[in-house]
């Protein structure tokens, strides 16, 4: 276990890089984007937020303690080019795999947290992601703690074959165990939450929220367009679409999430 401060937070606030807004494609400094919580100050569009920035946004100061931070993926089925992809993902994200797990307090409430990292192979779920999240739910069940999760994922990681698909069942089982013991689980779907993550722990929360405009769905939009021959509107599989179809409890703006989650943790506190 380590304190978050042991791992250097990438210095987004001191960054001199120029980046493009994911939504309006305008150039701006990474520092400016970080200062605005990765919401574009020009267009108001939500950009993907690094996992550790989310933790900093959500957790009470200096309360996050990371778990299983040293676990790393291996090329378990000798999939071609996977070793290189892992090395590139580590360099790009500064993380060892696609999820950060640990304990913290939010508005004074103790909580177990997992936050997926989009910069690590677009949050794809392999054995490390699945196993760390399952272990977190087991830990939370053992200590009667709630779980708050942030998802961002392209789905199961195909480079680990069936071992990845298995994680959907494994994590769902761990969520069930945690739930059977009367513990609270809140999940926030961020852009994009798709495939095997949608078809498992992203849709199993007692409370399921999403960020405005986030893509939340199962099958890929382009694949559906190919299969059906229908051009789908931009709103298809948006958080607003999911809210309208009854699959989300609410859409919560980024700046309100800490207070919203803190309030619900207090209501469910044991």
């Amino acid at each position, binding site marked *: 276990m380590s304190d978050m401060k042991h791992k250097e937070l990438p210095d987004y606030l001191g960054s001199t890089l120029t980046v493009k807004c994911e939504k309006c494609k305008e150039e701006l400094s990474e520092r400016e984007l970080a200062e605005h919580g990765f919401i574009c100050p020009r267009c108001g569009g939500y950009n993907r937020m690094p996992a550790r920035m989310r933790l900093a946004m959500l957790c*009470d100061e200096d*309360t996050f*303690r990371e*778990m*299983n931070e040293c*676990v790393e993926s*291996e090329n*378990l*089925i000798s*999939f071609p080019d996977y070793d290189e992809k892992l090395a590139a993902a580590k360099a790009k994200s500064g993380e060892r795999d696609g999820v950060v797990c640990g*304990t913290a307090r939010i508005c004074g409430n*103790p909580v177990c947290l997992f936050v997926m990292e989009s910069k690590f192979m677009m949050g794809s779920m392999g*054995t*490390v992601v*699945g*196993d*760390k999240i399952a*272990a977190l739910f*087991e830990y939370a069940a053992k*200590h009667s703690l709630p779980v708050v999760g942030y998802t961002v994922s392209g789905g*199961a*990681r*195909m480079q*680990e*074959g*069936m071992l*990845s*698909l*298995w*994680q*959907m*069942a*494994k994590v*769902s*089982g*761990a*969520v*069930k*165990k945690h739930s*059977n013991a009367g513990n609270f689980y809140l999940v926030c779907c961020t852009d994009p939450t798709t*495939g*095997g993550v*949608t*078809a*498992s*722990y*992203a*849709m199993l929360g007692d409370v399921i929220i999403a960020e405005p405009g986030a893509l939340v*769905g*199962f*099958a890929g939009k382009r*694949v*559906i367009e190919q299969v*059906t021959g229908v051009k789908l509107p931009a709103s*298809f*599989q948006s958080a607003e*679409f999911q809210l309208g*179809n*009854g*699959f989300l409890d609410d859409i919560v703006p980024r700046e309100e999430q800490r207070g919203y989650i803190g309030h619900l943790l207090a209501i469910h506190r044991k």
Partner: protein
Amino acid sequence: MNAYEKVKCTREAGRATAKDYIDAMFDGFVEFHGDRRFGDDPALIGGVATLDGKPVTVLGIEKGRDVSEHVARNFGCVSPEGYRKALRLMKQAEKFSRPVVCIVDTQGANCGIGAEERGEGAAIAENLYEMMDLHTPVLTLMVGEGSSGGALALAVADEIWMLENAYFTVVSPEACASILYKDSARAPEAAEHLKLAAQDLIEMGIIERVIAEPRDFTDPAQCKAYMEKLRDEVAGKLHALRGKKMNTLLSDRYEKYRKIGRCAPEGAMPAPKKH
């Protein structure tokens, strides 16, 4: 056969589909329709029957045997209401303490606008979640195609048996090839890398048994002998699973899924810390 030859073999006409298994292995099958929420999915057949004189719930993903059946069954691509019908019947099996046999043969969950609107992801998630804790034995037979979450949604089971040429994969080899190589024609290569064949999966501990197939499914004598043998083996396994204490059955099922790809060991879990 190499991996992709097996994949192609599962798509050939004449191979036994879920309905053939239900007809040949079970007695007195009564089909139940609908999810009691939205509709009835013809891609998923469910109902009750007896197997070797004992009641069972049977669920099968049916893709149809000719073009008109393929269309009527939506090519075995299950919609949310199909998964919800399956879950409804599994909960009914739990209530009446009868085991569940799932027969899986699907190229994947239904990929469509309505399926997304009605929560394909949520429906699959709920099946995984509930099946992991279903208080009755579950045995899954993978008899042909088994692609992705759409197949997994009926494969959280105490045991998974797979036909020697069936496949079970995280992503179809064609989709994998088009993502990796931008060329779906390279599916044969992708199929090798994905380790989707029964022999690969038994080595990984994902499935429990590989079942020998008849050389020719269209030969009535061969097919009859094959089905009778399989029926006896399934009946024997269900008998053994029924003999397990419920707590043992459920903890063994949990551990079977828990241990695959285990890398965040409990020893690495931190002690609770006061904040």
